[in-house]
């Protein structure tokens, strides 16, 4: 009888989650979520408030926003950029190698998306125009990311460089507003405008440097200063060489 009870319990433990997950194909993602994400985002995806009494061995207090309704959009972005999982909730997430294999990543995204939420906007680069993208970028993004997409600083945070962002990730970031970046609604930047914007950002990753020496794209002022210093020094030397008196 006891053996039967144990067996029944074992079967229930094994089958119940599988059955629950099998219906929407999220069991694998559920497992990964519980082991990797739930500490900070909560087992029911409702988020975790920072509680100093739960300080871990490494001195960090788990805390995180709710993930209900963030959808495929945010899950895909955060996992593929390696922003999540984050070692220290107080830190700004940084781009790194994704922590999950492609298969696990898809499973996790499917699990988070099963609670509903927005999808990644479809980007069609062929429909975008780089020049229109430049205009949008200057208006909305260049304040922080600089017109060449090299990134910059805010007080207390960093605007990330865009040199490694993929087309999907650029579009996702515009709609999510990761970390301290503002979110841009479809009214501000429509999906068609997003095509142009993404096209421009991809252009900044491999721009045509017609001058030859880009100086890390510091900008025209610094380039001008270098040109004057180099050319001015050369001219001075030549003028001195020509005008030097012979003794």
């Amino acid at each position, binding site marked *: 009888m006891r053996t039967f009870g144990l067996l029944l319990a074992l079967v229930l433990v094994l089958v119940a989650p599988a059955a629950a997950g099998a219906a929407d194909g999220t069991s694998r993602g559920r497992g990964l979520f519980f082991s990797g994400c739930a500490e900070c985002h909560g087992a029911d995806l409702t988020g975790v*408030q*920072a509680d100093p009494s739960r300080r871990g061995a490494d001195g960090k207090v788990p805390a995180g926003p709710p993930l209900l309704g963030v959808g495929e959009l945010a899950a895909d972005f955060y996992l593929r950029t390696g922003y999540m999982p984050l070692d220290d909730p107080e830190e700004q997430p940084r781009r790194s190698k994704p922590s999950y294999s492609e298969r696990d990543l898809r499973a996790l995204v499917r699990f988070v998306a099963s609670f509903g939420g927005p999808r990644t906007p479809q980007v069609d680069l062929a429909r975008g125009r780089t020049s229109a993208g430049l205009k949008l970028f200057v208006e909305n993004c260049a304040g922080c990311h600089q017109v060449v997409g090299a990134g910059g600083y805010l007080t*207390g945070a960093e605007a990330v460089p865009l040199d490694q962002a993929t087309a999907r990730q650029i579009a996702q970031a515009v709609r999510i*507003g990761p970390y*301290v970046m503002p*979110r841009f609604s479809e009214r501000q930047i429509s999906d068609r405008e997003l095509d142009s914007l993404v096209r421009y950002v991809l252009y900044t990753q491999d721009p045509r440097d017609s*001058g030859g020496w880009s100086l890390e794209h510091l900008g025209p002022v610094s380039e001008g200063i270098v040109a004057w210093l180099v050319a001015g020094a050369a001219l001075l030397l030549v003028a001195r060489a020509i005008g030097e008196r012979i003794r």
Partner: protein
Amino acid sequence: MKWLWSALALLLGRGRREAVAPSAVERPRIVPRQESSPRAELAVLALLALASLAAIGFIVVYVVDRLPAQTQLLGLTLALAFAFLSAALLVTARRLVPVEEISEPYPEPEHSAEADEVVQILDESGERMTRRGLLKVAAAGAGATLGAALIVPAASLGPVAYPDALRRSPWRRGLRLVDSKGRPIRSGDVEGKGLYTAFPQGVSHEELGSPLVVVRVEGQRLDLPEGRDPDLWAPEGIVAYSKICTHAGCAVSLYRTPLYEPTSKSPALVCPCHYSTFDPATGGGVLFGPAGRPLPQLPLEVDDDGTLRAGGDFSEPVGPSWWGVRRG
């Protein structure tokens, strides 16, 4: 090209003239004879030829117009042409132009009597002017007015003559907020994590007082200065500030808006020039940076259909601060 050919012609011509010269009448030399240097001449010729080649290269690159690194090649060929030319001039100056140093003592003044005469002439010439005083005054007047004409534009540097102009803005009660494309902004458009730039409808975007940043602040965070009724200054939590930084007048285009506030920095408007950081929840107060006063806030009204309108003019003068900005 012209100068190249003329330089070449000059050089060739020089050699030829020297060959002809000896048949002329023998006169004592002025410039002492110095050794000719065929090797230096050859070097100059070679350098000039190279300069010509590089210049021709420039023209070819320019005309072909289909090369992958055209800009770089244009720069390279032109730079080479100038470099060779300067090298040619250098060799010419050092090896071909006769060099001689002459120094003589200053001569004694030769005509001291005539010098006295000149002084006398000057003295007597002045006698023709009878109204000397008046002429002097007139000349001084012309000088002074001309000086004033040069100084007066300095008034544009500050609000000395017309202090009111800096205190006015185009915003009036009832003026609609529109985006950069001229579409009216509704309160529903302003989402929690977005940064919106707005302008007064029908007014130039170029005016200093025109651009606004519009953001939404959560109700419990809102802590406006005394005397600013939240219903008038932050209807539905929407606040509007001048987009012009009160420090140096840059556009406040950075919005630090945390996705999850407990673990990141609080929301703030940041100016990209010198990182002045303003708190949208407390009436634009300075959190950090060189700005000396808060961002000017604009009171707002929400229409029945949700359109945002100005509720009046800014709380304080717009734009970079100047001496006396706080004086009413």
